[in-house]
């Protein structure tokens, strides 16, 4: 029987995949992808919790929808930043974005 724990484990695996992607990638788009993975891991948690503990209320699903919308907006903003970044540096390598280092 598949319970809540299985979903949480899946979400955790997905989150860690996203986190590792963010930590290891130097390509900005890759990092954005990792972030999407982490957001989706959170979405799975939201929907799973709603399903197993909230009865017939749809709070979790609605919240997940919000997250998806925000993720779309965030992708738009991030892509705009990358475009600008590319214009200035000729690449989208985040290692080079270190002008504000202490």
């Amino acid at each position, binding site marked *: 029987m598949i319970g809540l724990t299985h979903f949480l484990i899946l979400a955790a695996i997905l989150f860690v995949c996203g*986190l590792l992607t*963010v*930590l*290891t990638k130097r390509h900005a788009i890759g*990092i954005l992808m990792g972030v999407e993975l982490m957001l989706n891991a959170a979405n799975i948690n939201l929907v799973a919790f709603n399903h197993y503990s909230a009865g017939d209320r749809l709070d979790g699903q609605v919240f997940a929808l919000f997250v998806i919308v925000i993720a779309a907006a965030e992708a738009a903003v991030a892509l705009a930043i990358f475009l600008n970044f590319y214009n200035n540096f000729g690449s989208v390598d*985040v*290692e080079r*974005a*270190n*002008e*504000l*280092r*202490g």
Partner: protein
Amino acid sequence: MFELPILLILLIALPLVASALLLVLGRRFDEPFSGYLGTGVAMLSFGVSILTLVTWIYGGSTGGQGWGHDRGPYLDFIRWIPIGYYDAQRTPGYLALSVYVDSLTIIMMTMVAFVSAVVHLFSLAYMKGDTRYPQFFCYLSLFSFCMMGLLVSGSLLQLLIFFELVGLCSYLLIGFWRERPAASAAAIKAFVMNRVGDVGFIVGMCLLIGYFGSVTLPDLWLMLASGAHAGVMSTTMLTVIGVLLSFGAFGKSAQFPLHTWLPDAMAGPTPVSALIHAATMVAAGVFLLARIYPILTPDARLFILIIGATTILIGSLCALAQRDLKKALAFSTIGQLGYMVLAIGVGSWTGAMFHLLTHAFFKSLLFLCAGNVIHTMHHDHRLEHFGGLFRRMPVTGVTFAIGTLAMSGAPFMSGFYSKEMIIAHASAWANLAGEQHRAALLQLALWVPVAAAYLTPLYMTRLWMLTFAGRPRKRKLYKHAGEAGVMSFPLVVLSGMAIFAGFSWFPIQSMVEGTIKETRNYIASMPHLDPGRADPFKTAWPTLSSPTETVTENGEPTEPRDVLRSPVERRVEAGYHTAHLLTGWAWLAGIMVGVAIWAPGFAVTDRLAKIAPLGWVRQFLAHRMYFDDLYDLVFVGATHIATGVAVGIDRFLIDPALDGVARLTALFGKASAKIDDAAVDGVVRGVGQTIWLGGGAMRLAQPGRIRVYVASAVGILVLVIGTMVVVGLTR
């Protein structure tokens, strides 16, 4: 008639305007024009002075307080500086700017304007080609202005101011050829010697201000004549003041202790010597003595008399041995000024002023003649290089001879009358002193001028013979010698004056005598004064107004009318007889001896000088009695010693002290630098370093690498959640 004030203002302002014009625009005017401007103004001044003279004698105002010849002085004043209170009524005292004009002023102004005009005319040719031609005329005009200002001065303060101004002009003109070291040195010497005298003058004046609160001449005369001084000061104090004041005159008139500047002043251009150092400026000292005569006590006059007699001897003797034409003339000027000073001393006020005026004419004549000679000899002054010049310059020779005769006191020449008057008065004074059984030495007051009356024609003849007679001693110079008409004309004019100035119909004598009368009238017109007691000239000898002898119809002289004469007048009359007896033929004796000795040039004197004592005497006189060397030794030497001492103190006392202070300061500075470095800077630096270190630590956390940020964020998150979980589980 013309307005007197306007004429006086014109007389003073004209030369000033000319001088200012030449000073400002002198460089734009080319050579002859600046000379013509100066000369034109000088001639104009002379014209104005004649008008003034005529106005003074025939114009004038009548009435009790009127001014004019034989009537009274013209005076006016402006209160200038209030100086406290000076009398019982608590009247505020003032130093006044005042004008005091009497016959003496007028005739002196005429004389100055005349000599100035003649000298200007002479300078036109004499200074031709000089690089500073306009400047020369500028200074001459400035001098005329200062001299006029001096003559109208009505207070000692003003007299002092103009004394300094004429001194300045004298300085500028002596050092006119400033490229010559001798001229510069002579200018400075003249200035310094005059300052020495002026110190006395200033101190005397300050004493008068202190005691009386006024130095205006009429005030002084009134106070002293009325005996108002008796309560304020002792007679000794008054004597001291008189002596101090006369020091100013001694400096200006080159009298005994301060006479050494005048021979050196001959380094200036010769027209300057004629105008300033013969006729006018040096006479200003005697003029001062004449002005303060009423306040001179008998003791002060005795002092002046001694100085005058000494100066006569120095001047007359040194003139005998000078090898420089102009220096010999300078010493003769000193001698003649000595006559005037002695005359003041014996109370011959009229004689001194009379001699001053006649001397101005014949001495400036002699100097201009010398200028003519020097000009043609290419500025060689040495008598050794002259000789035989009469054939080349007859006009100069004749006029020089006239000057010589006038100065020697040959009959019917101007010098005859003035010198005779002085000797007569000196004789009267000596006579009186003898009767009062005062020191027998005082008889020298008569014998010194008498001796000088023999010496004067001697040295003047020497000059004439060595210059104009004999064989020319310097062929090359002689060949080109000659005289120009332009330069001879002034000589002729002056020699006319040298002849006629002494005659009684000439206005000089009457003007001088009128001065006394005017002053007496002025004093007498003052209220609350006893005119008998208050006579400011009560110690002066009278001149004889009518001839001493009259001739009866059959041609025999009658006895002098003793009955009509006062004892004083009889004494003067006896003095005239003595003068006739002692010096009547002095001029001829002197000239004959002079011709005998110097006709063959230096031959006789050189042979005489081989006899040891005579040679020493000649050496002594030629070196001007070693006064310059003495002053060098005493004053310059003392100054050098004082300087050495001062340098020693400076070097060994003040310098080390200063150095020590400086060293201490340096040490202190170094210590304070260390403290600064260690303590103050350390604190500041420590603060900075700490912040720097902190910043370094902080920047470790800001490496600029996104993965580190993300990893640390995740790490912290894990830590927080882990902690929460652990805490939650253990609870």
